[in-house]
């Protein structure tokens, strides 16, 4: 019809294999193998069994990395999640101590988490001008404050009936249930982010919010859902955390937001929005878990472990950029 010159535009993507091998995910896989080789030779106690044994506590945090990745893709941040974990762990422990059925306890944790997330989402979508960082900073203080008030003096609660939590902390052979759950949810979240219309719209919002809105994307609805799911997953994290501590206290979940963000960013998800995928996030989560377990088993000073993670984090983002710059400069020279 209108096309006069009948230009032809290619619509076949390049060979995807090339992308995978040279991508950040490819590097992460290699890094994962290297970290394991390093840890195994570094510590005599580092083996499959001990890693699987220690994994569950770390994996609980990985639950939060999934929705955090979505939030980062949006170009936003949620630093209240550690406090949400605290609050939902506290309240579910309280419900547990009323001898409620275990399913009710789990539901409490999930619902409380989702509600907290929804509060974040509500404020952020009602007052779009507010930066997420400051809102979630305030709610972080509030959620933990509520937990402090609920826990009262003493600031700690223990569950009297540990059966349910003991059960979900169980294993198939050596493999803890939580590993299956993390993998299943990880794949679901990853596919959903990468392949679904919801995911595509999330990327659109993260890349150009205004254009996405003009193109009919329900920006605020999507943000609300993501923050709510963030809360929900924090609730799930709380459930598994309680299954390893049989209780909650005012410091429960402290600093988890940073861990979740670090895992996601190390996995190549840009904090400026619109970039990265969850496959990288999942691999990086396992790298960090293995590294922490391995170094921990040699009783390396905890601060030194943090230092190493800090260096890795900075290097993971800086190196590709530097290499890219150098490559560009070389290419320019050639031209």
């Amino acid at each position, binding site marked *: 019809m209108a096309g006069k010159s009948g230009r032809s535009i290619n619509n076949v993507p390049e060979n995807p294999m090339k992308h995978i091998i040279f991508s950040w995910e490819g590097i992460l896989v290699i890094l994962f193998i290297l970290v394991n080789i390093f840890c195994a030779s570094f510590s005599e106690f580092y083996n499959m069994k001990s890693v699987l044994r220690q994994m569950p506590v770390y994996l609980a945090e990985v639950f939060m990395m999934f929705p955090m990745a979505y939030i980062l893709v949006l170009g936003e941040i949620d630093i209240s999640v550690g406090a949400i974990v605290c609050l939902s762990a506290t309240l579910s422990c309280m419900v547990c101590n009323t001898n409620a059925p275990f399913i009710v306890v789990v539901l409490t944790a999930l619902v409380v988490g989702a509600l907290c997330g929804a509060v974040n989402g509500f404020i952020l979508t009602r007052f779009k001008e507010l930066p997420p960082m400051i809102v979630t900073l305030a709610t972080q203080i509030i959620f933990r*404050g509520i937990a402090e008030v609920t826990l009262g003096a003493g600031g700690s609660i223990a569950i009297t009936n540990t059966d349910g939590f003991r059960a979900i902390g169980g294993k198939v052979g050596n493999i803890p249930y939580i590993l299956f759950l993390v993998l299943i949810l990880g794949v679901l979240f990853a596919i959903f982010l990468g392949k679904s219309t919801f995911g595509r719209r999330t990327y659109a919002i993260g890349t150009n919010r205004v254009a996405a809105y003009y193109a009919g994307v329900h920006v605020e609805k999507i943000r609300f859902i993501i923050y709510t799911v963030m809360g929900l997953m924090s609730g799930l994290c709380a459930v598994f955390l309680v299954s390893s501590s049989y209780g909650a206290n005012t410091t429960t979940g402290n600093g988890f937001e940073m861990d979740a963000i670090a895992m996601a960013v190390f996995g190549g998800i840009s904090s400026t929005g619109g970039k990265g995928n969850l496959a990288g996030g999942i691999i990086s989560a396992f790298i960090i878990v293995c590294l922490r377990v391995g170094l921990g088993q040699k009783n390396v000073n905890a601060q030194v472990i943090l*230092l190493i993670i*800090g*260096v890795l984090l900075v290097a993971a983002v800086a190196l590709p950029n530097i290499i890219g710059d150098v490559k560009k400069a070389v290419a320019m020279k050639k031209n």
Partner: protein
Amino acid sequence: MEKKSVIKKITGSREALLAIIVVVLFAVVTVISPSFLTPKSLMEMLKNNAVTMVMSLGMLCVMLVGGIDISIMSTLALSGMSIGMLLKYGHITSTLLAFIIAMAIGIACGLVVGLVISRANVPPIIATMGFMYIYRAMGYLVSHGGEWASAAALGEFKNFATTSFLGINKVIWVILVCYVVFFFFMKWTRTGRRIYAVGSNASAAQVSGINVKNINLLVYVIMGFLAGLGGALQVSVYASAMPDMQYGGEMDVIAACVIGGVSMSGGRGTVVGAFLGSIILATIAKALPLVGISSLWQNMIKGVIILVVVVINVVLQRIADKNALKGREM
């Protein structure tokens, strides 16, 4: 007409709105606890919040270019702990030298952060998160894994915070000087305006021949410098240096700036705003125990107040915008 324009001026300026909030806050606290509004109490408040107040100036610069720095309290701990240990083991005794060393360490830390951000294009939140761990760990290492430098070990240095100059505590002088210098710097110097320019539109700044990378570097160096200064102040004010000083305190500094109307996406924010923002936070911290709120509830109420203040700010801004539209002739 005259009256209208005055109202318009007030509702149009974020700082004026904030000043109103500060006045209201002061009034409420004073009604409940009259001793709040005494010079001594206010001076104490400033002194006890010197670190946050001084560092929010650096955060202002960082946030103006659209960045953020959450490594500052680790830098503070590293620099504070370093001079603490130097003083403790008698390597230095001069107060001035201690301040200079702390600031130099801060500048070095800021320089590294700035280089990583401006030259390797690492997003600020990520880079500073990494350095938050790194500098804090270095602080621990400097302290031989957990030694403290306590009052007795600090010698003359700790007297800095207890002595006065012209009747005003030296710590408060430091705050005053910092704010005056920064007010001048941000408003009247070319470099100060360039910080705004880069934050407002980095690619335009590039085109007008501003070295964007260097400005980016500069703000983190300034931040580092103030974090180093903050380290020295912290050690001096509380007469003790511990490696976990101000753990998590960066959020207070960021909150002070945001409450003060500094935009997190860059370009917007003033020294006056940063001042008012940190005063609001300081008032909350000072007032909550004063007005007799149970300790258990204090954290939660602090969170609620922060949230309410930022939301009120938005709502007032919206009303102001709407009124401005209503005034338009059709």
